[in-house]
């Protein structure tokens, strides 16, 4: 068809518009399965959950409409505030630390190790850092439970063997230590993800930028700050936002490692909602907690969408 573009052009144009107009309607059936699924699995449940948040319900019988009482109760509930305060700690462990440390490690791997010891060395190390990402979170929980078991676990028995009995702790069972311990496990879990994203981002940086800076006598650290961090801004923004979303949603590691305890030491909003739904069966209250979380996350999604739209325009 490219052989006679000129002669066929007028004809093509009319056909195109006609086809387009017909095909617009023709494409609607393809939306149907997705639309029905979305309606049943996302839209209806989300609206139902928001409505439940205005009721008092134990899961049996009929919900009683109580207006905004659940939300008023939330404002005065220490556990609710504690769960969001812990979310901040989880964001540090899952978003901020892995982004900072990951950025540095990937720059070292990509810019320092690979040119000196070969790309294969760098990719092998990258794969090692990535491994925790592929382990199911529940399995990671069993793994760390085994390592941190207070009496027979490896961490404590190694400390005792080294004569450091005083440092052997009940890592997940001590209210003061549980949250920091969970945070360390989460950093271990997340680091590989940020390294892989950042390293692939670095491959797109124009090498001549670094070469020019090198000729100008810039040190490795200067080039890291001025070129790498600067050029990777889009990746950093996306990684920070997506990992923050993941941190706010975190459930499985908490459920498996501590069940929010001891006391409320490691409670997070999603676990608090789950607990109200299925343990104390205060369904309306659980719905209110999850609605607050949903609003917060939707706001973040909007920011992400806006960022990506802006990216598209630049590209």
């Amino acid at each position, binding site marked *: 068809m490219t052989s006679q573009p000129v002669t066929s052009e007028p004809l093509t144009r009319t056909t195109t518009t006609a086809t387009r107009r017909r095909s617009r309607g023709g494409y609607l059936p393809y939306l149907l399965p997705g639309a029905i699924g979305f309606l049943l699995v*996302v839209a209806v449940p989300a609206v139902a959950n928001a409505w439940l948040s205005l009721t008092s319900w134990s899961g049996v019988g009929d919900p009683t409409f109580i207006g905004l009482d659940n939300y008023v109760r939330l404002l005065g509930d220490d556990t609710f505030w504690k769960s969001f305060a812990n979310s901040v700690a989880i964001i540090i462990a899952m978003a901020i630390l892995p982004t900072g440390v990951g950025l540095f490690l990937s720059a070292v791997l990509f810019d320092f190790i690979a040119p000196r010891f070969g790309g294969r060395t760098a990719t092998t190390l990258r794969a090692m*850092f990535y491994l925790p990402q592929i382990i199911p979170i529940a*399995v990671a929980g069993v793994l760390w439970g085994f390592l941190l078991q207070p009496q027979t676990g490896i961490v404590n028995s190694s400390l005792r063997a080294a004569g450091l009995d005083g440092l052997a702790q009940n890592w997940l069972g001590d209210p003061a230590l549980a949250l920091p311990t969970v945070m360390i496990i989460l950093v271990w879990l997340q680091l590989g993800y940020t390294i892989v994203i950042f390293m692939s981002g670095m491959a797109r940086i124009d090498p001549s930028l670094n070469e020019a800076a090198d000729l100008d006598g810039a040190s490795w650290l200067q080039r890291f700050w001025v070129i790498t961090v600067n050029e990777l801004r889009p990746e950093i923004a996306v990684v920070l936002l997506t990992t923050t979303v993941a941190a706010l949603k975190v459930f499985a590691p908490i459920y498996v490692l501590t069940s929010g305890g001891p006391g409320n030491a490691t409670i997070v909003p999603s676990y608090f909602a789950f607990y109200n739904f299925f343990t104390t069966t205060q369904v309306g209250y659980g719905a209110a907690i999850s609605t607050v979380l949903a609003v917060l996350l939707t706001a973040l999604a909007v920011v992400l969408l806006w960022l990506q739209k802006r990216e598209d325009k630049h590209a």
Partner: protein
Amino acid sequence: MSTTQVTPVSATGAPPAGGNRRPPRVRRPDARGRSAATRRSPGAVVVLIALAVLAVITLLPVLLAALNAVKSPADYVANGPLALPRSFDLTGITSFWQSVDFTGKLLNSVLISGSVAVIAVVLSLLTAYAIGIGRIRGSFGVLAVFMVAFTLPQEALIYPLYVMAKAVGLYDTKLSVIIVLAVLQSAFGTYLLSSVLHTFPAEVLEAARMDGAGTFRVLWSIVMPLTRPTLVVLATFFFIWTWNEFFIPLVLLPSNENQTVSVALGALFGQYTSDPVTSAAAALVGVLPALVFFLVFQRTLMKGVNIGAVK
């Protein structure tokens, strides 16, 4: 037209497979005298060793589990968890395997993850076809809705889903989990595929239409073959995400015979505290399938992590 245009890799600006192309100069023997940038100074070796130590620490939990899973309990007690095994005893593994019916859990996980991967890819492709190629009105709005759908916390959907599943008799069936997860993951797939299909070469579609191909024909014999690499990456991700999924199966599949590997192991935590060898065996047995996926799909995974960036 080029097929590279429709792979997710170029769509997100990532490099080709491997992700780590180095300039050729690095392996050239004459690199030695070139500049400070490629010299293997003693300092550079120290940096390499430090990174290697860090990487080994990252792997240590898994290595320690493997080391201790094959010990006899007496060996563990006598020589401690850090000693190399002096016995080779698989009782920990076999007794754990049998006590939780791990074969059954594996089959459940394979069935659920496989079904979700296939259904979610089909759903994503159909919707993305209407949005990306059909350019239906309000595409951006539709995309925004899908974006919100995969950011919503599952806790904000679970109670109504639980009530609905009970009402239609799907509670505690694998089908309920398959439907819910396929729809949730297809929200992400639609989002990704729409932007990929949006850049689909228009002249190819035009040629097909002029040949009289209907919309389904275009989808089946043109769009699908050309986007196959993306679809494979998506299916791989859906499979692994579903395998690791914890919350939805935890709530919707309470009975033992329907449980997945992830939920079965999560429920085990703390059960074997008095028996470190069995704990290590449980951890190792749970890690193994993931390790197999990693080795099999490593290229796909590394290539596609960027598409996962949005999740």
